[in-house]
Protein backbone atom coordinates (compact mmCIF):
# COMPACT_ATOMS: atom_id res chain seq x y z
CA UNK A 1 0.00 0.00 0.00
CA UNK A 2 1.20 3.49 -0.62
CA UNK A 3 0.58 6.91 0.80
CA UNK A 4 -2.26 8.46 -1.08
CA UNK A 5 -2.68 12.03 -2.18
CA UNK A 6 -5.63 13.13 -4.16
CA UNK A 7 -4.75 13.22 -7.83
CA UNK A 8 -7.35 15.90 -8.55
CA UNK A 9 -5.53 18.78 -6.82
CA UNK A 10 -3.20 21.14 -8.68
CA UNK A 11 0.41 20.03 -8.54
CA UNK A 12 2.01 22.76 -6.40
CA UNK A 13 -0.46 22.67 -3.50
CA UNK A 14 -0.41 18.91 -3.80
CA UNK A 15 3.33 18.87 -3.23
CA UNK A 16 3.05 21.24 -0.28
CA UNK A 17 0.25 19.18 1.26
CA UNK A 18 2.32 16.09 0.75
CA UNK A 19 5.36 17.59 2.45
CA UNK A 20 3.24 18.77 5.38
CA UNK A 21 1.66 15.35 5.52
CA UNK A 22 5.07 13.72 5.74
CA UNK A 23 6.24 16.07 8.47
CA UNK A 24 3.16 15.30 10.55
CA UNK A 25 3.57 11.56 10.07
CA UNK A 26 7.27 11.54 10.98
CA UNK A 27 6.61 13.88 13.91
CA UNK A 28 3.94 11.57 15.31
CA UNK A 29 6.09 8.49 14.82
CA UNK A 30 9.00 10.17 16.60
CA UNK A 31 6.72 11.24 19.47
CA UNK A 32 5.54 7.70 19.98
CA UNK A 33 9.08 6.40 19.77
CA UNK A 34 9.89 8.72 22.68
CA UNK A 35 6.86 7.47 24.59
CA UNK A 36 7.97 3.86 24.25
CA UNK A 37 11.63 4.51 24.96
CA UNK A 38 11.14 6.87 27.91
CA UNK A 39 10.71 4.36 30.76
CA UNK A 40 13.66 2.26 29.59
CA UNK A 41 15.78 5.37 29.18
CA UNK A 42 14.89 6.64 32.66
CA UNK A 43 15.58 3.22 34.13
CA UNK A 44 18.97 3.01 32.44
CA UNK A 45 20.23 6.53 33.27
CA UNK A 46 18.97 6.26 36.85
CA UNK A 47 20.84 3.00 37.30
CA UNK A 48 24.07 4.76 36.31
CA UNK A 49 23.70 7.75 38.66
CA UNK A 50 24.74 8.29 42.25
CA UNK A 51 22.01 8.86 44.85
CA UNK A 52 23.14 12.49 45.20
CA UNK A 53 22.58 13.11 41.56
CA UNK A 54 19.16 11.45 41.65
CA UNK A 55 17.94 13.56 44.55
CA UNK A 56 19.22 16.86 43.17
CA UNK A 57 19.08 16.29 39.46
CA UNK A 58 16.60 15.76 36.72
CA UNK A 59 15.17 12.33 35.95
CA UNK A 60 15.84 12.73 32.24
CA UNK A 61 19.35 14.15 32.37
CA UNK A 62 22.27 11.94 31.46
CA UNK A 63 24.51 10.92 34.37
CA UNK A 64 27.39 13.39 34.92
CA UNK A 65 29.80 10.66 35.86
CA UNK A 66 28.31 7.29 34.97
CA UNK A 67 28.98 4.76 37.70
CA UNK A 68 28.51 1.01 37.68
CA UNK A 69 28.40 0.96 41.46
CA UNK A 70 24.59 0.49 41.56
CA UNK A 71 24.83 -2.45 39.15
CA UNK A 72 27.52 -4.13 41.24
CA UNK A 73 25.50 -3.51 44.37
CA UNK A 74 22.32 -4.84 42.75
CA UNK A 75 24.14 -7.95 41.62
CA UNK A 76 25.85 -8.85 44.86
CA UNK A 77 24.62 -6.79 47.85
CA UNK A 78 21.08 -5.49 47.48
CA UNK A 79 18.56 -6.44 50.18
CA UNK A 80 15.43 -8.40 49.50
CA UNK A 81 13.57 -8.18 52.78
CA UNK A 82 16.20 -8.83 55.45
CA UNK A 83 18.62 -10.88 53.34
CA UNK A 84 21.23 -8.78 51.61
CA UNK A 85 22.95 -11.01 49.10
CA UNK A 86 22.17 -9.29 45.82
CA UNK A 87 20.29 -10.53 42.81
CA UNK A 88 22.86 -13.03 41.58
CA UNK A 89 21.42 -16.02 43.44
CA UNK A 90 17.91 -15.27 42.20
CA UNK A 91 19.23 -14.77 38.70
CA UNK A 92 20.65 -18.29 38.76
CA UNK A 93 17.42 -19.59 40.25
CA UNK A 94 15.63 -18.24 37.20
CA UNK A 95 18.20 -19.74 34.83
CA UNK A 96 17.97 -23.13 36.54
CA UNK A 97 14.20 -22.98 36.20
CA UNK A 98 13.99 -21.60 32.66
CA UNK A 99 16.45 -23.84 30.83
CA UNK A 100 14.95 -27.25 31.69
CA UNK A 101 11.38 -25.97 31.47
CA UNK A 102 11.96 -24.54 27.99
CA UNK A 103 13.76 -27.63 26.70
CA UNK A 104 11.22 -30.12 28.03
CA UNK A 105 8.13 -28.19 26.95
CA UNK A 106 9.59 -27.58 23.48
CA UNK A 107 10.49 -31.23 22.95
CA UNK A 108 7.08 -32.41 24.12
CA UNK A 109 5.38 -29.78 21.97
CA UNK A 110 7.32 -31.00 18.93
CA UNK A 111 6.33 -34.63 19.55
CA UNK A 112 2.70 -33.67 20.16
CA UNK A 113 2.57 -31.55 17.02
CA UNK A 114 4.11 -34.42 15.04
CA UNK A 115 1.51 -36.91 16.29
CA UNK A 116 -1.39 -34.51 15.84
CA UNK A 117 -0.54 -33.82 12.19
CA UNK A 118 1.20 -36.90 10.78
CA UNK A 119 -0.24 -39.74 12.89
CA UNK A 120 -3.81 -38.65 13.20
CA UNK A 121 -6.36 -40.77 15.00
CA UNK A 122 -10.04 -40.39 15.60
CA UNK A 123 -10.65 -37.47 17.93
CA UNK A 124 -7.38 -35.68 17.24
CA UNK A 125 -9.18 -32.35 16.87
CA UNK A 126 -10.82 -32.74 20.26
CA UNK A 127 -7.50 -33.57 21.90
CA UNK A 128 -5.91 -30.54 20.29
CA UNK A 129 -8.84 -28.29 21.22
CA UNK A 130 -8.62 -29.39 24.84
CA UNK A 131 -4.90 -28.68 24.97
CA UNK A 132 -5.40 -25.37 23.21
CA UNK A 133 -8.06 -24.19 25.63
CA UNK A 134 -5.61 -24.83 28.44
CA UNK A 135 -3.52 -21.94 27.11
CA UNK A 136 -6.24 -19.51 27.94
CA UNK A 137 -7.40 -20.43 31.40
CA UNK A 138 -6.65 -17.89 34.09
CA UNK A 139 -4.05 -19.67 36.17
CA UNK A 140 -5.88 -18.58 39.30
CA UNK A 141 -8.30 -21.41 38.63
CA UNK A 142 -5.57 -24.05 39.10
CA UNK A 143 -3.33 -22.20 41.53
CA UNK A 144 -4.71 -23.62 44.74
CA UNK A 145 -4.97 -27.32 43.82
CA UNK A 146 -1.43 -27.16 42.45
CA UNK A 147 -0.24 -25.59 45.70
CA UNK A 148 -1.90 -28.42 47.64
CA UNK A 149 -0.34 -31.10 45.44
CA UNK A 150 3.11 -29.53 45.52
CA UNK A 151 2.79 -29.27 49.30
CA UNK A 152 1.96 -32.97 49.65
CA UNK A 153 4.76 -33.93 47.28
CA UNK A 154 7.10 -31.83 49.38
CA UNK A 155 6.08 -33.67 52.56
CA UNK A 156 6.48 -36.96 50.75
CA UNK A 157 9.93 -35.78 49.69
CA UNK A 158 10.88 -35.21 53.33
CA UNK A 159 9.73 -38.74 54.17
CA UNK A 160 11.79 -40.10 51.30
CA UNK A 161 14.75 -38.03 52.41
CA UNK A 162 14.55 -39.54 55.88
CA UNK A 163 14.10 -43.05 54.55
CA UNK A 164 16.57 -43.12 51.68
CA UNK A 165 18.70 -40.02 52.14
CA UNK A 166 17.55 -38.64 48.82
CA UNK A 167 14.34 -36.76 48.00
CA UNK A 168 14.30 -37.19 44.22
CA UNK A 169 13.69 -33.48 43.74
CA UNK A 170 10.34 -33.57 45.49
CA UNK A 171 9.67 -30.35 47.35
CA UNK A 172 12.47 -28.55 45.55
CA UNK A 173 11.08 -25.19 44.41
CA UNK A 174 13.02 -25.14 41.18
CA UNK A 175 11.83 -28.63 40.26
CA UNK A 176 8.27 -27.61 41.17
CA UNK A 177 8.40 -24.52 38.97
CA UNK A 178 9.90 -26.46 36.06
CA UNK A 179 7.06 -28.95 36.36
CA UNK A 180 4.40 -26.23 36.55
CA UNK A 181 5.79 -24.33 33.57
CA UNK A 182 6.08 -27.46 31.47
CA UNK A 183 2.50 -28.48 32.22
CA UNK A 184 0.98 -25.08 31.55
CA UNK A 185 3.26 -24.33 28.59
CA UNK A 186 2.37 -27.51 26.70
CA UNK A 187 -0.68 -25.97 25.07
CA UNK A 188 1.33 -23.25 23.38
CA UNK A 189 4.27 -25.40 22.32
CA UNK A 190 1.89 -28.00 20.88
CA UNK A 191 0.02 -25.27 19.04
CA UNK A 192 3.20 -23.89 17.49
CA UNK A 193 4.48 -27.23 16.25
CA UNK A 194 1.09 -28.48 15.15
CA UNK A 195 0.52 -25.46 12.94
CA UNK A 196 4.03 -25.71 11.54
CA UNK A 197 3.86 -29.43 10.80
CA UNK A 198 0.42 -29.00 9.28
CA UNK A 199 2.14 -27.31 6.34
CA UNK A 200 4.97 -29.84 6.26
CA UNK A 201 4.65 -32.17 3.21
CA UNK A 202 3.08 -35.41 4.38
CA UNK A 203 4.48 -37.11 1.25
CA UNK A 204 7.94 -37.07 2.79
CA UNK A 205 6.66 -38.85 5.89
CA UNK A 206 4.81 -41.39 3.78
CA UNK A 207 7.84 -42.06 1.61
CA UNK A 208 9.97 -42.65 4.69
CA UNK A 209 7.37 -45.05 6.05
CA UNK A 210 7.35 -47.01 2.84
CA UNK A 211 11.11 -47.26 3.21
CA UNK A 212 10.54 -48.76 6.63
CA UNK A 213 11.47 -45.82 8.86
CA UNK A 214 9.98 -45.97 12.33
CA UNK A 215 7.98 -43.33 14.19
CA UNK A 216 11.00 -41.93 16.01
CA UNK A 217 13.34 -42.25 13.05
CA UNK A 218 11.01 -40.10 10.97
CA UNK A 219 10.80 -37.59 13.79
CA UNK A 220 14.55 -37.43 14.28
CA UNK A 221 15.75 -37.63 10.68
CA UNK A 222 12.98 -35.81 8.81
CA UNK A 223 10.88 -33.62 11.07
CA UNK A 224 13.46 -32.19 13.47
CA UNK A 225 16.07 -31.16 10.88
CA UNK A 226 13.34 -29.19 9.11
CA UNK A 227 11.95 -27.54 12.23
CA UNK A 228 14.63 -25.00 13.04
CA UNK A 229 12.48 -21.87 12.55
CA UNK A 230 9.64 -23.11 14.72
CA UNK A 231 12.05 -24.40 17.36
CA UNK A 232 13.58 -20.94 17.60
CA UNK A 233 10.14 -19.34 17.82
CA UNK A 234 8.99 -21.75 20.52
CA UNK A 235 12.15 -21.50 22.58
CA UNK A 236 12.03 -17.72 22.53
CA UNK A 237 8.33 -17.63 23.37
CA UNK A 238 8.69 -20.06 26.25
CA UNK A 239 11.87 -18.42 27.51
CA UNK A 240 10.24 -15.00 27.63
CA UNK A 241 7.05 -16.27 29.26
CA UNK A 242 8.73 -18.38 31.90
CA UNK A 243 11.41 -15.86 32.72
CA UNK A 244 8.76 -13.16 33.13
CA UNK A 245 6.28 -15.26 35.11
CA UNK A 246 5.36 -13.86 38.48
CA UNK A 247 2.13 -15.56 39.55
CA UNK A 248 3.43 -19.14 39.79
CA UNK A 249 6.77 -17.97 41.10
CA UNK A 250 5.23 -15.96 43.93
CA UNK A 251 2.75 -18.71 44.80
CA UNK A 252 5.22 -21.63 44.85
CA UNK A 253 8.59 -19.98 45.50
CA UNK A 254 7.56 -16.68 47.04
CA UNK A 255 10.19 -16.24 49.73
CA UNK A 256 13.64 -17.25 50.91
CA UNK A 257 16.61 -18.00 48.70
CA UNK A 258 14.59 -20.04 46.20
CA UNK A 259 12.82 -17.04 44.62
CA UNK A 260 13.17 -16.52 40.88
CA UNK A 261 14.20 -13.15 39.54
CA UNK A 262 10.78 -11.52 39.15
CA UNK A 263 9.72 -12.20 42.73
CA UNK A 264 13.09 -11.09 44.07
CA UNK A 265 12.91 -7.86 42.08
CA UNK A 266 9.47 -7.09 43.43
CA UNK A 267 10.71 -7.72 46.97
CA UNK A 268 13.81 -5.59 46.48
CA UNK A 269 11.80 -2.67 45.19
CA UNK A 270 9.31 -2.92 48.04
CA UNK A 271 11.92 -3.35 50.77
CA UNK A 272 11.56 -0.18 52.77
CA UNK A 273 14.19 -0.60 55.46
CA UNK A 274 16.71 2.24 55.49
CA UNK A 275 17.23 4.65 52.62
CA UNK A 276 15.64 3.53 49.39
CA UNK A 277 18.39 3.38 46.79
CA UNK A 278 16.58 4.06 43.56
CA UNK A 279 19.67 3.65 41.43
CA UNK A 280 20.22 0.15 42.81
CA UNK A 281 16.54 -0.71 42.33
CA UNK A 282 16.70 0.41 38.72
CA UNK A 283 19.89 -1.57 38.15
CA UNK A 284 18.16 -4.63 39.61
CA UNK A 285 15.22 -4.08 37.27
CA UNK A 286 17.62 -3.77 34.34
CA UNK A 287 19.30 -7.03 35.31
CA UNK A 288 15.89 -8.73 35.42
CA UNK A 289 14.99 -7.28 32.02
CA UNK A 290 18.28 -7.91 30.23
CA UNK A 291 17.94 -11.60 29.29
CA UNK A 292 14.62 -11.15 27.52
CA UNK A 293 15.72 -7.83 26.01
CA UNK A 294 18.87 -9.44 24.60
CA UNK A 295 16.82 -12.25 23.11
CA UNK A 296 14.52 -9.64 21.60
CA UNK A 297 17.37 -7.65 20.11
CA UNK A 298 19.15 -10.72 18.75
CA UNK A 299 16.11 -12.57 17.43
CA UNK A 300 13.32 -10.00 17.27
CA UNK A 301 11.91 -11.43 14.07
CA UNK A 302 11.29 -14.81 15.67
CA UNK A 303 9.97 -13.18 18.81
CA UNK A 304 7.30 -11.37 16.83
CA UNK A 305 6.49 -14.49 14.88
CA UNK A 306 5.93 -16.39 18.12
CA UNK A 307 3.63 -13.73 19.47
CA UNK A 308 1.67 -13.76 16.24
CA UNK A 309 1.43 -17.54 16.17
CA UNK A 310 0.21 -17.43 19.74
CA UNK A 311 -2.35 -14.81 18.80
CA UNK A 312 -3.78 -16.18 15.60
CA UNK A 313 -5.07 -19.54 16.67
CA UNK A 314 -6.21 -22.68 15.03
Amino acid at each position, binding site marked *: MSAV*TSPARPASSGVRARTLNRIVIYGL*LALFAIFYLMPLF*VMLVTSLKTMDEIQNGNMLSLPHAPTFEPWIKAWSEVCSGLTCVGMKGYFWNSIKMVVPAVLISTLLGALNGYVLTKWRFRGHTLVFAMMLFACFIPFQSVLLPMATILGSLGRFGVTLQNATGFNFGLGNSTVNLVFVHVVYGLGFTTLFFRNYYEAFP*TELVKAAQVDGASFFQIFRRIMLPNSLPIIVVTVIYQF*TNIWNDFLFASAYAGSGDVMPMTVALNNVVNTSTGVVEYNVNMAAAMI*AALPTLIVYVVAGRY*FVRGLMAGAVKG
Partner: protein
Amino acid sequence: MSTVAETQIKLTPEHDARPSTSVRSRLQDLLPKIVLAPSFAATIVFVYGFILWTIYLSFTNSKTFPSYDITGARAYQRLWRWTFESDPPSSWYTSITNMGIFGFLYIVICLALGLFLAILLDQKIRGEGMLRPIYLYPMALSFIVTGVAWKWFLDPGLGLEQTLHQWGWTSFHFDWIKNKDFVIYTVVIAGVWQASGFVMAMFLAGLRGIDGEIMKAAQIDGATTFQLYRRIVIPLLRPVFLSAFIVLAHLAIKSYDLVVALTSGGPGGSAWLPSNFMYEFTFKRNEMAVGSASAVIMLMTITAIIVPYLYSELREKSR
Protein backbone atom coordinates in the same frame (compact mmCIF):
# COMPACT_ATOMS: atom_id res chain seq x y z
CA MET B 1 1.04 -41.32 -3.61
CA SER B 2 -1.78 -43.82 -3.88
CA THR B 3 -4.93 -43.71 -1.81
CA VAL B 4 -4.08 -47.06 -0.29
CA ALA B 5 -0.92 -45.63 1.16
CA GLU B 6 -2.90 -42.73 2.53
CA THR B 7 -5.34 -44.86 4.52
CA GLN B 8 -2.48 -46.97 5.77
CA ILE B 9 -0.72 -43.99 7.15
CA LYS B 10 -3.74 -42.50 8.79
CA LEU B 11 -5.03 -45.62 10.45
CA THR B 12 -2.55 -48.43 10.72
CA PRO B 13 0.89 -47.33 9.66
CA GLU B 14 3.39 -50.03 8.78
CA HIS B 15 0.81 -52.76 9.15
CA ASP B 16 1.40 -54.12 5.72
CA ALA B 17 5.00 -53.11 5.57
CA ARG B 18 6.01 -55.66 8.18
CA PRO B 19 3.28 -58.21 8.58
CA SER B 20 5.56 -60.80 10.19
CA THR B 21 6.39 -58.93 13.39
CA SER B 22 2.85 -58.41 14.59
CA VAL B 23 3.57 -57.47 18.20
CA ARG B 24 6.18 -55.04 17.05
CA SER B 25 3.89 -53.49 14.48
CA ARG B 26 1.02 -53.30 16.96
CA LEU B 27 3.36 -51.40 19.23
CA GLN B 28 4.29 -49.17 16.31
CA ASP B 29 0.61 -48.46 15.76
CA LEU B 30 0.14 -47.49 19.36
CA LEU B 31 3.35 -45.50 19.59
CA PRO B 32 1.95 -42.14 18.46
CA LYS B 33 -0.77 -42.37 21.08
CA ILE B 34 1.70 -43.43 23.74
CA VAL B 35 3.84 -40.41 22.92
CA LEU B 36 0.89 -38.04 23.10
CA ALA B 37 -0.63 -39.64 26.18
CA PRO B 38 1.51 -38.04 28.92
CA SER B 39 0.84 -34.53 27.64
CA PHE B 40 -2.84 -35.18 27.23
CA ALA B 41 -3.09 -36.82 30.63
CA ALA B 42 -1.27 -33.89 32.21
CA THR B 43 -3.74 -31.53 30.57
CA ILE B 44 -6.70 -33.56 31.79
CA VAL B 45 -5.44 -33.78 35.36
CA PHE B 46 -3.66 -30.48 35.90
CA VAL B 47 -5.98 -28.28 33.88
CA TYR B 48 -9.44 -29.80 33.83
CA GLY B 49 -9.11 -31.83 37.02
CA PHE B 50 -7.73 -28.86 38.92
CA ILE B 51 -10.49 -26.63 37.61
CA LEU B 52 -13.06 -29.09 38.95
CA TRP B 53 -11.16 -29.16 42.23
CA THR B 54 -11.28 -25.36 42.44
CA ILE B 55 -14.99 -25.40 41.67
CA TYR B 56 -15.45 -27.99 44.41
CA LEU B 57 -13.53 -25.86 46.92
CA SER B 58 -15.67 -22.86 46.09
CA PHE B 59 -18.68 -24.74 47.45
CA THR B 60 -17.00 -25.61 50.75
CA ASN B 61 -16.22 -23.62 53.84
CA SER B 62 -12.43 -23.67 53.31
CA LYS B 63 -10.53 -21.01 55.22
CA THR B 64 -6.76 -21.36 55.71
CA PHE B 65 -6.72 -25.01 54.69
CA PRO B 66 -8.92 -26.79 52.21
CA SER B 67 -11.94 -28.46 53.73
CA TYR B 68 -13.93 -30.96 51.74
CA ASP B 69 -17.41 -30.73 53.25
CA ILE B 70 -19.80 -29.17 50.80
CA THR B 71 -21.53 -26.29 52.54
CA GLY B 72 -23.36 -24.80 49.60
CA ALA B 73 -22.95 -21.66 47.59
CA ARG B 74 -22.10 -19.42 50.51
CA ALA B 75 -18.96 -18.06 48.87
CA TYR B 76 -20.93 -17.06 45.77
CA GLN B 77 -23.65 -15.51 47.91
CA ARG B 78 -21.02 -13.38 49.64
CA LEU B 79 -19.48 -12.33 46.33
CA TRP B 80 -22.93 -11.51 45.02
CA ARG B 81 -23.69 -9.37 48.08
CA TRP B 82 -20.32 -7.62 47.76
CA THR B 83 -21.04 -6.91 44.12
CA PHE B 84 -23.50 -4.23 45.21
CA GLU B 85 -21.62 -2.95 48.24
CA SER B 86 -20.35 0.29 46.80
CA ASP B 87 -20.26 2.60 49.81
CA PRO B 88 -17.77 1.96 51.28
CA PRO B 89 -16.71 -0.22 48.36
CA SER B 90 -16.08 -3.87 49.17
CA SER B 91 -12.86 -5.38 47.83
CA TRP B 92 -14.87 -7.37 45.31
CA TYR B 93 -16.79 -4.30 44.17
CA THR B 94 -13.48 -2.46 43.69
CA SER B 95 -11.98 -5.42 41.83
CA ILE B 96 -14.76 -5.86 39.32
CA THR B 97 -15.25 -2.13 38.80
CA ASN B 98 -11.53 -1.83 38.16
CA MET B 99 -11.71 -4.79 35.81
CA GLY B 100 -14.42 -2.98 33.84
CA ILE B 101 -12.48 0.28 33.67
CA PHE B 102 -9.13 -1.33 33.01
CA GLY B 103 -10.43 -3.93 30.57
CA PHE B 104 -12.39 -1.42 28.53
CA LEU B 105 -9.74 1.30 28.35
CA TYR B 106 -6.86 -1.13 27.89
CA ILE B 107 -8.50 -2.92 24.98
CA VAL B 108 -9.92 0.17 23.28
CA ILE B 109 -6.77 2.28 23.59
CA CYS B 110 -4.46 -0.57 22.54
CA LEU B 111 -6.62 -1.27 19.48
CA ALA B 112 -6.89 2.41 18.52
CA LEU B 113 -3.25 3.19 19.13
CA GLY B 114 -2.07 -0.02 17.49
CA LEU B 115 -4.14 0.63 14.38
CA PHE B 116 -3.07 4.26 14.25
CA LEU B 117 0.63 3.42 14.51
CA ALA B 118 0.29 0.64 11.95
CA ILE B 119 -1.35 2.99 9.46
CA LEU B 120 1.34 5.62 10.05
CA LEU B 121 4.08 3.04 9.59
CA ASP B 122 2.46 1.81 6.42
CA GLN B 123 2.98 5.14 4.62
CA LYS B 124 6.30 4.07 3.09
CA ILE B 125 8.28 5.32 6.06
CA ARG B 126 12.03 5.54 5.94
CA GLY B 127 13.44 3.93 9.06
CA GLU B 128 10.47 1.65 9.60
CA GLY B 129 12.86 -1.15 10.41
CA MET B 130 14.21 0.93 13.29
CA LEU B 131 10.88 2.21 14.60
CA ARG B 132 9.04 -1.10 14.69
CA PRO B 133 11.27 -2.76 17.28
CA ILE B 134 11.16 0.39 19.41
CA TYR B 135 7.36 0.21 19.57
CA LEU B 136 7.38 -3.49 20.24
CA TYR B 137 10.15 -4.11 22.76
CA PRO B 138 8.02 -3.54 25.92
CA MET B 139 6.30 -6.82 25.12
CA ALA B 140 9.57 -8.60 25.91
CA LEU B 141 9.70 -7.17 29.44
CA SER B 142 8.01 -8.73 32.41
CA PHE B 143 5.09 -6.93 34.01
CA ILE B 144 7.25 -6.59 37.10
CA VAL B 145 9.93 -4.61 35.25
CA THR B 146 7.26 -2.55 33.50
CA GLY B 147 5.65 -1.86 36.86
CA VAL B 148 8.93 -0.85 38.49
CA ALA B 149 9.80 1.48 35.61
CA TRP B 150 6.42 3.19 35.54
CA LYS B 151 6.20 3.36 39.32
CA TRP B 152 9.33 5.49 39.23
CA PHE B 153 8.17 7.51 36.25
CA LEU B 154 4.76 8.32 37.74
CA ASP B 155 5.92 8.93 41.31
CA PRO B 156 5.05 12.55 42.10
CA GLY B 157 8.23 13.10 44.13
CA LEU B 158 10.65 11.53 41.67
CA GLY B 159 9.29 11.22 38.20
CA LEU B 160 7.38 13.26 35.69
CA GLU B 161 5.88 15.77 38.13
CA GLN B 162 9.24 16.55 39.71
CA THR B 163 10.89 16.87 36.30
CA LEU B 164 8.30 19.31 35.00
CA HIS B 165 8.58 21.33 38.23
CA GLN B 166 12.31 21.62 37.62
CA TRP B 167 11.63 22.81 34.11
CA GLY B 168 9.53 25.61 35.57
CA TRP B 169 5.99 24.25 35.27
CA THR B 170 5.46 24.32 39.02
CA SER B 171 1.67 24.11 38.93
CA PHE B 172 1.81 20.72 37.21
CA HIS B 173 0.22 18.10 39.38
CA PHE B 174 0.09 14.41 38.65
CA ASP B 175 -0.33 12.05 41.59
CA TRP B 176 -2.70 9.44 40.17
CA ILE B 177 -0.51 6.62 41.42
CA LYS B 178 -1.12 7.70 45.03
CA ASN B 179 -4.79 8.55 44.54
CA LYS B 180 -7.25 5.76 45.24
CA ASP B 181 -9.74 7.08 42.68
CA PHE B 182 -7.24 7.32 39.85
CA VAL B 183 -4.66 4.63 40.54
CA ILE B 184 -6.34 2.16 38.16
CA TYR B 185 -5.71 4.58 35.29
CA THR B 186 -1.98 4.37 35.89
CA VAL B 187 -2.32 0.61 35.42
CA VAL B 188 -4.02 1.38 32.10
CA ILE B 189 -1.12 3.63 31.06
CA ALA B 190 1.53 1.03 31.85
CA GLY B 191 -0.54 -1.77 30.30
CA VAL B 192 -1.10 0.17 27.09
CA TRP B 193 2.59 1.03 26.93
CA GLN B 194 3.44 -2.63 27.11
CA ALA B 195 0.93 -4.17 24.69
CA SER B 196 0.07 -1.51 22.10
CA GLY B 197 3.24 -2.09 20.09
CA PHE B 198 2.31 -5.71 19.72
CA VAL B 199 -1.18 -4.78 18.51
CA MET B 200 0.54 -2.44 16.05
CA ALA B 201 2.58 -5.38 14.72
CA MET B 202 -0.59 -7.44 14.27
CA PHE B 203 -2.33 -4.65 12.35
CA LEU B 204 0.76 -3.99 10.26
CA ALA B 205 0.88 -7.64 9.24
CA GLY B 206 -2.82 -7.36 8.35
CA LEU B 207 -2.28 -4.21 6.30
CA ARG B 208 0.58 -5.81 4.39
CA GLY B 209 -1.72 -8.68 3.52
CA ILE B 210 -4.31 -6.49 1.80
CA ASP B 211 -4.42 -6.77 -1.96
CA GLY B 212 -2.87 -3.67 -3.52
CA GLU B 213 -5.26 -3.83 -6.48
CA ILE B 214 -8.25 -2.99 -4.31
CA MET B 215 -6.45 0.09 -3.03
CA LYS B 216 -5.50 1.21 -6.52
CA ALA B 217 -9.04 0.79 -7.77
CA ALA B 218 -10.38 2.90 -4.94
CA GLN B 219 -7.78 5.59 -5.59
CA ILE B 220 -8.69 5.73 -9.25
CA ASP B 221 -12.32 6.18 -8.21
CA GLY B 222 -11.17 9.31 -6.37
CA ALA B 223 -11.36 8.14 -2.76
CA THR B 224 -9.44 10.30 -0.28
CA THR B 225 -6.94 8.67 2.06
CA PHE B 226 -9.36 8.93 4.94
CA GLN B 227 -12.22 7.39 2.96
CA LEU B 228 -9.91 4.69 1.70
CA TYR B 229 -9.03 3.61 5.23
CA ARG B 230 -12.46 4.01 6.73
CA ARG B 231 -14.45 2.32 3.98
CA ILE B 232 -12.05 -0.27 2.64
CA VAL B 233 -8.99 -0.96 4.75
CA ILE B 234 -10.48 -1.07 8.23
CA PRO B 235 -13.38 -3.35 7.25
CA LEU B 236 -10.84 -5.68 5.64
CA LEU B 237 -8.92 -5.82 8.91
CA ARG B 238 -11.83 -7.29 10.83
CA PRO B 239 -10.13 -10.65 11.51
CA VAL B 240 -7.14 -8.80 12.98
CA PHE B 241 -9.45 -6.81 15.25
CA LEU B 242 -10.91 -10.06 16.47
CA SER B 243 -7.54 -11.72 17.14
CA ALA B 244 -6.19 -8.63 18.85
CA PHE B 245 -9.33 -8.33 20.95
CA ILE B 246 -8.99 -11.94 22.09
CA VAL B 247 -5.33 -11.50 23.02
CA LEU B 248 -5.98 -8.26 24.88
CA ALA B 249 -9.06 -9.49 26.73
CA HIS B 250 -7.12 -12.53 27.79
CA LEU B 251 -4.15 -10.44 28.96
CA ALA B 252 -6.46 -8.04 30.78
CA ILE B 253 -8.24 -10.70 32.79
CA LYS B 254 -4.95 -12.36 33.69
CA SER B 255 -3.18 -9.11 34.67
CA TYR B 256 -1.97 -9.57 38.17
CA ASP B 257 1.72 -8.81 38.26
CA LEU B 258 1.33 -5.33 36.84
CA VAL B 259 -0.94 -4.19 39.65
CA VAL B 260 1.38 -5.71 42.24
CA ALA B 261 4.57 -4.17 40.85
CA LEU B 262 3.16 -0.79 39.87
CA THR B 263 0.92 -0.01 42.82
CA SER B 264 1.37 -2.81 45.39
CA GLY B 265 -2.41 -3.03 45.14
CA GLY B 266 -2.93 0.72 45.42
CA PRO B 267 -3.93 2.68 48.55
CA GLY B 268 -6.21 0.35 50.54
CA GLY B 269 -6.42 -2.19 47.72
CA SER B 270 -7.95 0.42 45.41
CA ALA B 271 -6.08 -0.90 42.34
CA TRP B 272 -7.09 -4.54 42.74
CA LEU B 273 -8.30 -6.58 39.83
CA PRO B 274 -10.16 -9.89 40.37
CA SER B 275 -6.83 -11.71 39.97
CA ASN B 276 -5.42 -9.78 42.92
CA PHE B 277 -8.60 -10.35 44.88
CA MET B 278 -8.26 -14.09 44.32
CA TYR B 279 -4.63 -14.16 45.40
CA GLU B 280 -5.15 -12.04 48.49
CA PHE B 281 -8.25 -13.84 49.69
CA THR B 282 -6.78 -17.29 49.07
CA PHE B 283 -3.26 -16.87 50.37
CA LYS B 284 -3.33 -13.88 52.71
CA ARG B 285 -6.81 -13.51 54.17
CA ASN B 286 -7.50 -17.21 54.70
CA GLU B 287 -10.75 -17.14 52.76
CA MET B 288 -9.98 -20.01 50.45
CA ALA B 289 -13.57 -20.70 49.44
CA VAL B 290 -14.17 -17.09 48.46
CA GLY B 291 -10.87 -17.00 46.58
CA SER B 292 -11.83 -20.15 44.68
CA ALA B 293 -15.25 -18.75 43.85
CA SER B 294 -13.64 -15.61 42.41
CA ALA B 295 -11.27 -17.80 40.35
CA VAL B 296 -14.26 -19.69 38.99
CA ILE B 297 -15.91 -16.43 37.98
CA MET B 298 -12.71 -15.33 36.21
CA LEU B 299 -12.54 -18.65 34.40
CA MET B 300 -16.15 -18.42 33.27
CA THR B 301 -15.58 -14.92 31.93
CA ILE B 302 -12.60 -16.02 29.86
CA THR B 303 -14.42 -19.14 28.70
CA ALA B 304 -17.33 -17.08 27.47
CA ILE B 305 -14.93 -15.11 25.28
CA ILE B 306 -12.52 -17.83 24.17
CA VAL B 307 -14.67 -20.88 23.49
CA PRO B 308 -16.80 -19.38 20.70
CA TYR B 309 -13.62 -17.98 19.16
CA LEU B 310 -11.69 -21.26 19.28
CA TYR B 311 -14.73 -23.13 18.04
CA SER B 312 -15.10 -20.97 14.96
CA GLU B 313 -11.33 -21.00 14.31
CA LEU B 314 -11.01 -24.77 14.50
CA ARG B 315 -14.13 -25.33 12.43
CA GLU B 316 -12.91 -22.98 9.76
CA LYS B 317 -9.62 -24.88 9.62
CA SER B 318 -11.21 -28.27 9.23
CA ARG B 319 -13.61 -27.08 6.57
